[in-house]
């Protein structure tokens, strides 16, 4: 049985329909008009226990709204959500014991209190025993260096420290299902690396994870499955490996020739490949279909006939695939 199941999940918001500027604002005050906006449009999602799922999409695609529906913050306009068999909005309290939530753009720390006080307040709220609390704090410290800023007031923390503290808040009760909405937003590379390592540990321990992020490195390093949404609907749902295998159908070789590269001439000589000029005059990029030619075949023919000074292989990244999915170039 899936730990999380959403069927035909839909959320429609009512937004003011007004013209821009002062005139529009005054007119709206007198004659109020609204239009409906569908942020999440019939999403079906099923997550098994222990899965780590990346939930990605362009800005405004409905990622955060979906997370809010799944956590019980919002009530669906249509469709159903079940987390461990419960409706998270109706059975909010019972659901809260089993889930952990982090919204990267907001904090749940008490602003004028030391981090430790916030964690203790949450400990009592969740009914965590002293022994469990101590053990978890020790573990968070090992992985997130929490003790470094435990006595500091929340308002004095750097963004990276704040995010680590918020992560500890979200996990203090050892939730079975964790939702992280952009946990690495605005962080520098070293803090990102540390957070990703922590999330990998979490997944290895069997916690179910739903992660939204614009940073595709988060996704590749932490998640096995990816759900891409656009305009409130699922554009792709499957493993990252399948996404790559299915959509990455071309590979490229960068050749560095002895003299300047004549791209039209090369394209005529090797019509099976796509040729484009590189950054330097002697550089040329050869793109070939990986399901028609092996890399060895391509390299064999090119090196035999062109004797390049140097060459390098480049694999298209998941980032390219998702960018193309967003742009509507690829279909499900």
């Amino acid at each position, binding site marked *: 049985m899936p730990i999380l199941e959403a069927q035909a999940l839909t959320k429609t918001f009512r937004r003011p329909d007004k013209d821009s500027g002062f005139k529009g604002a005054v007119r709206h005050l007198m004659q109020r008009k609204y239009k409906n906006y569908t*942020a999440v449009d019939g999403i079906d999602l099923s997550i098994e226990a222990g899965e780590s799922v990346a939930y990605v999409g362009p800005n405004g695609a409905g990622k955060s709204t979906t997370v809010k529906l799944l956590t019980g*913050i919002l009530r669906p306009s249509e469709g159903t959500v079940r987390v461990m068999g419960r409706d998270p909005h109706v059975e909010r309290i*019972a659901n809260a014991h089993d*889930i952990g939530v982090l919204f990267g753009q907001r904090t749940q720390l008490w602003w*004028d209190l030391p981090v430790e006080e916030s964690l203790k307040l*949450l400990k*009592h709220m969740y009914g965590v025993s002293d022994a*469990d609390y101590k053990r978890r704090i020790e573990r968070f410290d090992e992985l997130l260096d929490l003790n470094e800023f435990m006595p500091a*007031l929340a308002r004095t923390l750097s963004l990276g420290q704040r995010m680590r503290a918020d992560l500890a808040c979200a996990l203090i009760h*050892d939730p079975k299902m964790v939702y992280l909405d952009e946990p690495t937003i605005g962080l520098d590379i070293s803090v990102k690396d540390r957070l990703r390592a922590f999330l990998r540990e979490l997944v290895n321990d069997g916690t179910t994870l739903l992660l939204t992020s614009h940073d595709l490195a988060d996704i590749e390093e932490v998640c096995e499955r990816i759900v891409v949404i656009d305009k409130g609907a699922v554009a792709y749902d499957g493993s990252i490996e399948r996404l790559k295998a299915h959509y990455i159908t071309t590979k490229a070789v960068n050749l560095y020739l002895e003299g300047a590269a004549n791209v039209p001439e090369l394209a005529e000589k090797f019509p099976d490949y796509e040729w484009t000029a590189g950054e330097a005059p002697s550089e040329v990029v050869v793109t070939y279909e990986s399901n028609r030619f092996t890399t060895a075949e391509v390299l064999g023919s090119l090196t035999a006939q062109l004797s390049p000074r140097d060459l390098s292989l480049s694999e298209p990244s998941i980032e390219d695939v998702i960018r193309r999915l967003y742009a509507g170039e690829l279909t499900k």
Partner: protein
Amino acid sequence: MADTQTPAIAVPVRHVFAIYWRTWFAQIRSIVEYPADLWVMASAGAVWNILQFAFLAVLFANVPDVAGWGYHEMLLLSGLLSVAGGCNALFWDGAWSTGAMVIKGDIDYRITRPAPVIIQVGSSHIGMQSIGEVVFGVAMMVYGWIGAGIGFAAIPIGVLAIACAAVIQSALVTALCAVNFWIKGQASIFAFLMIELQGNAMKMPLGIFPIAVRLVAMFIVPVAFINFVPVAVVTGHMSAWWLAGIPAAVVGSVLLAAGVYRLGLRAYDSAGH
């Protein structure tokens, strides 16, 4: 990580109180981070009450009574209203932040925690003007009580009246602030309106107002049970039977607040879609 906790399905009342007090004391610790704010706000509450005292003293220097109510009885009215408002600010000031929280999406995290949202919001702020309001409100009450010659026997009624007044005041404020779940504004205009009306009308005997106003204050928005009814009973202006209306007003206003807040959370649509 092994887990030894047993998740509860409903939140036991004792746990709710524990969460409330822990959060409230956490706010106290936050407040002492800003000592200047603390002293300015506490003084503001005190100054406001001293002005009320002065107003009544000047009024009764010129008139013998207001609709049969004397100086000390009027002090009791003002004092009890101040204590009720002060207790609201001291113990439940967070309710006033409901509108701002709705607009900014700050209810989100509170929904994901295993505690009643209304408790988390209510205990999220302390209005420090309340110290002056409560201290000087009690002082006005004591002075009025002695001056009106009410006696010691009625003190338990007075104490109970203060507790009920604080609960009714806080519950009505909460219900009116919860309207912001729908009307989407930072300021809790309906609650402000109620406070304004109380400040202007409920420091006077209800008998000087038209019947429609009296009915509204007694039965529609039962602000009369905060200060007028208990004071009128202990000073002999109303029959003791009216005391029975006070717990009814407590229960009614608390149920109203809880119900409106619950409906508000159903309508909550967060921020940033």
